[in-house]
């Protein structure tokens, strides 16, 4: 009986990480920014039907980059996690932190145990109250690494360049239009073309809204906010 090839664990992890990173780098990017009334999520996504950004619970949103079928699975798992928790307890007991931890566990297990790791990064954002509780943004990588981000976050192929750009240009207390324009400039920082409302999927967690804070911004008002209406 032939012996199976020996591959050292270091080599195996390195290969898997490289494979996942390559997959993610092929996809378009997403930025998230805190603005005066909540959290803004901007994705470069020409499709109006296949979403990268969506609602998980009252004050929690999800964003994913990489392979669509993989982060779509994670999104639905997130909605299930949140609804199953909020129904027997209270809606206030559903937190981004618990959800981010669950994603981290799941992605970590898949990365170590499965032959093929997920080629995704996901982001979980929870908007704080008007009375001063802080917003939270968690960024979970393909191998389960979890980071909490402040003020802004970027993920996807050009994440590093976008993060550098946002570091130089982000400031507190921006209005929705200003933060949106900054987010779009950040997404186009590595490309020559200007992004229009047709290339973008935009949503906000708006703390001024009643119970469900998540709201998509359709193309019409989006072009107004971008200041590109003719």
């Amino acid at each position: 009986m032939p012996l199976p090839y020996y591959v050292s664990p270091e080599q195996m992890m390195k290969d898997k990480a490289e494979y996942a990173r390559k997959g993610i780098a092929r996809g378009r990017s997403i930025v998230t920014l805190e603005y005066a009334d909540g959290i803004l999520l901007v994705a470069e996504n020409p499709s109006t039907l296949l979403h990268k950004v969506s609602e998980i619970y009252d004050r929690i949103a999800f964003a994913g980059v990489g392979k669509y079928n993989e982060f779509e699975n994670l999104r639905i798992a997130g909605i299930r996690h949140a609804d199953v928790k909020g129904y027997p307890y209270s809606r206030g007991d559903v937190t981004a932190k618990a959800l981010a931890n669950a994603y981290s566990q799941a992605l970590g297990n898949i990365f170590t145990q499965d032959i093929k790791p997920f080629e995704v990064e996901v982001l979980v954002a929870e908007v704080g109250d008007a009375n001063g509780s802080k917003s939270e943004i968690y960024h979970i990588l393909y191998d389960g690494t979890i980071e909490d981000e402040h003020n802004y976050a970027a993920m996807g192929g050009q994440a590093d360049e976008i993060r550098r750009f946002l570091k130089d240009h982000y400031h507190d207390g921006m209005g929705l239009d200003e933060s949106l324009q900054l987010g779009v400039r950040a997404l186009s920082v590595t490309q020559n073309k200007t992004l229009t409302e047709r290339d973008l999927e935009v949503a906000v967690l708006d703390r001024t809204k009643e119970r469900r804070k998540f709201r998509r911004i359709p193309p019409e008002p989006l072009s107004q906010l971008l200041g590109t209406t003719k």
Partner: protein
Amino acid sequence: MNDDRRLHSFDASVNSSFVELLRRQSPHLLPGGPAPDVPHGTTVLAMRYRDGVIMAGDRQATAGYQVASRRIEKIFKADDLSGVGIAGAAGPAMEMAKLFQTELEHYEKVEGDNLSLDGKANKLGQMIRMNLQAAMMGLAVVPIFAGFDEKAGVGRLFKYDITGGRYEERDYDAQGSGSKDARDSLKKLWKRDMPRDEAMRTALEALIDAADEDVGTGGPDLVRGIFPTVKTITRSGFGDVADDEIRRVCEAILAERTKTGTGS
């Protein structure tokens, strides 16, 4: 008759079984027996009007001959375009309304799209059917479901029986212990395409009539400032009618009745 007495010992229910004895003498001691007096919601109604549907309910929960609560809410928002009015055992009914809300929201989030109004109405029917066993023991839940049908561009309403049977009503319907009186009232007052003000007044007239005739239904409570709930469901969504406005209309109706002697 004498024969019956002589054959008494042949009756299957008279034997050496203690359970049978208990069933005859103290059925409330048997596990799973008929439920004791639990709070029951009393009267809710739904009716079509020009812009969609209006839903209204009194605020009282009744347990036997006691007022269990004076301020419960019986009309719940199911989602942006529909609502549930609950009647029957208040505890299971509120639980069912909450489960139904979560069900609709869960579907909407996973699918990225709303269920159709028919889909929502069917789903609620299935939930009522799941409650059938509890219903047989006196914990029946019989809601009214109403909503705005985006495709058809009209308001629609549905009533149910305890087995989950779903029946669409065209114009109006009421449910709960005072429902017959509310329906009688609506039968005389309801008109096609009423504007909002008139529809609201009609709904409140019907609830006041129900409270008048049915001991379980609570009327406008001027002392404590408790008034029926009224909600509207239109193309632009599920809307609350402000307490002040309901108070004004209730006071106007009562003043009118005092003056003319209507309903005395």
